[in-house]
């Protein structure tokens, strides 16, 4: 079996993730820092260590500005609902996932937020200058996905940050963390939302939001934090302001093990591995008659995610045959990103997305190419 659905979630997980989670559940179990006994303190140390390790990976000076969330979607919602007010304007690229577009459409209706969509080119690449030109004195936020979950297109977020100046940049890092080097200290004001279960190779249900210096967000959720317990108002300091309720410590324990693995293997070496796989995959796919590959032509501007269509075969049929006949697991359809598919011209049928990860091999790529070539040649929907 070849797992090529890493853009949805990574598999397998990093070595040590399951052990760390089992260890937490079997040996620790307590609520981090809520009580003062040894197990609660040990749990708090795990949360602290995870926060510090993630902050270091992302180039953050102050780890208290990285809050844990159930995932990237929650972090994006916390950023958008916590920042945008009536009359604000937000600019989003046309490649955004529904994790961004749905809360934005909600805010458009509920709070009168003006949503402006910046059309990218057909490869999904944003134009930083265009985004800069769209900024007005009402623009409260610009939202750009670091790397597309549909085409794998890597956006020039540093250039975007420069072009939009003091306007905060919301970066959806769901696809980029662990797969691309990220250094938030080199960007202007920004919010970076990520999930732990994709490029970080951790468990689902845990992620985070990095809140740049000088950016204040209203909390999405209020409740117990284990601090200022005598008061009925939410504490105003980070990370507690945004972390009400018992934390997902077992998820954080798994995420810590995963982040340590990614840090030790190094994001650069993962990037090189995935780039080599993708280059061969892209070259091979382009050489198969009847196959169209989307995204940019430059592998340096791509994650190891290839979106294709095969003439005469629907994406869902193709994915079904790949699974049933070749044991190759991919994802067909719209990938929760209708705007991105409209941008690249594949709405509503979508594409077949082949997304590789750090544990895929060169042999996997050759097997995928053989299978796709077979599909393109035979074009017979499954019976």
């Amino acid at each position, binding site marked *: 079996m070849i797992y090529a659905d890493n853009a949805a979630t990574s598999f397998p997980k990093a070595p040590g993730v399951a052990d760390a989670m089992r260890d937490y559940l079997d040996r620790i179990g307590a609520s981090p820092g809520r*009580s*003062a006994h040894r197990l*609660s303190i040990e749990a*708090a140390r795990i*949360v602290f260590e995870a926060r510090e390790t993630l902050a270091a990976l992302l180039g953050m000076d102050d780890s208290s500005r990285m809050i844990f969330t159930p995932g990237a979607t929650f972090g994006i919602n916390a950023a958008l609902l916590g920042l945008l007010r009536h009359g604000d304007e937000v600019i989003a690229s046309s490649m955004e996932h529904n994790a961004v577009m749905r809360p934005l459409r909600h805010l458009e209706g509920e709070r009168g937020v003006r949503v402006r969509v910046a059309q990218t080119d057909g490869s999904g690449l944003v134009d930083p200058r265009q985004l800069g030109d769209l900024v007005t004195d009402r623009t409260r936020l610009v939202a750009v996905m670091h790397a597309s979950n549909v085409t794998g297109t890597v956006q020039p977020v540093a250039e975007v940050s420069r072009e939009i100046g003091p306007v905060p940049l919301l970066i959806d890092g769901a696809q980029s963390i662990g797969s691309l080097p990220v250094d938030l200290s080199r960007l202007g004001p920004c919010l970076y939302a990520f999930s732990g279960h994709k490029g970080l190779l951790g468990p689902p249900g845990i992620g985070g939001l990095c809140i740049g210096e000088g950016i204040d967000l209203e909390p999405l959720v209020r409740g117990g934090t284990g*601090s200022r*317990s*005598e008061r009925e108002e939410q*504490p105003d300091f980070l*990370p507690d302001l945004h972390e009400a309720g018992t934390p997902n410590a077992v998820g954080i324990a798994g995420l810590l093990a995963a982040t340590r693995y990614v840090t030790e293997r190094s994001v650069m070496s993962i990037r090189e591995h995935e780039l080599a796989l993708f280059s061969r995959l892209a070259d091979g796919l382009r050489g198969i008659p009847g196959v169209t590959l989307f995204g940019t032509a430059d592998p340096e501007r791509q994650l190891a995610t290839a979106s294709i269509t095969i003439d005469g075969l629907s994406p869902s049929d193709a994915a079904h045959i790949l699974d049933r006949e070749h044991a190759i697991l991919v994802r067909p359809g719209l990938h929760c990103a209708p705007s991105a598919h409209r941008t690249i011209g594949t709405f509503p049928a979508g594409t077949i997305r082949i997304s590789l990860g750090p544990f895929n091999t060169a042999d996997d790529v050759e097997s995928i190419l053989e299978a796709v070539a077979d599909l393109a040649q035979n074009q017979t929907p499954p019976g």
Partner: protein
Amino acid sequence: MDRPDSVINFVSVHHVMRAEHVFKEHGLAHEIIPTPRDLSSDCGIAIALSGAVLKQALDLLAGAGVEVEALYRRRGSTYERMPPVSPC
């Protein structure tokens, strides 16, 4: 460790963990304790240490940028709040 007669309070568990990290790095004796009930319950846990190393501890925290919420000294079975000690 000498008798831990001083207590440092922090606003959050995150700050306590940062302080612990700094103290461990410098081999400074300390203990994490439940915040005594008669102190402001800034956060459920606090750090107790000997008054003999309190100044050193505060200097280390200031150097690492860890904000201290309040200081207390044990007086028998109660605690009295100490004025802020400015670091070197």
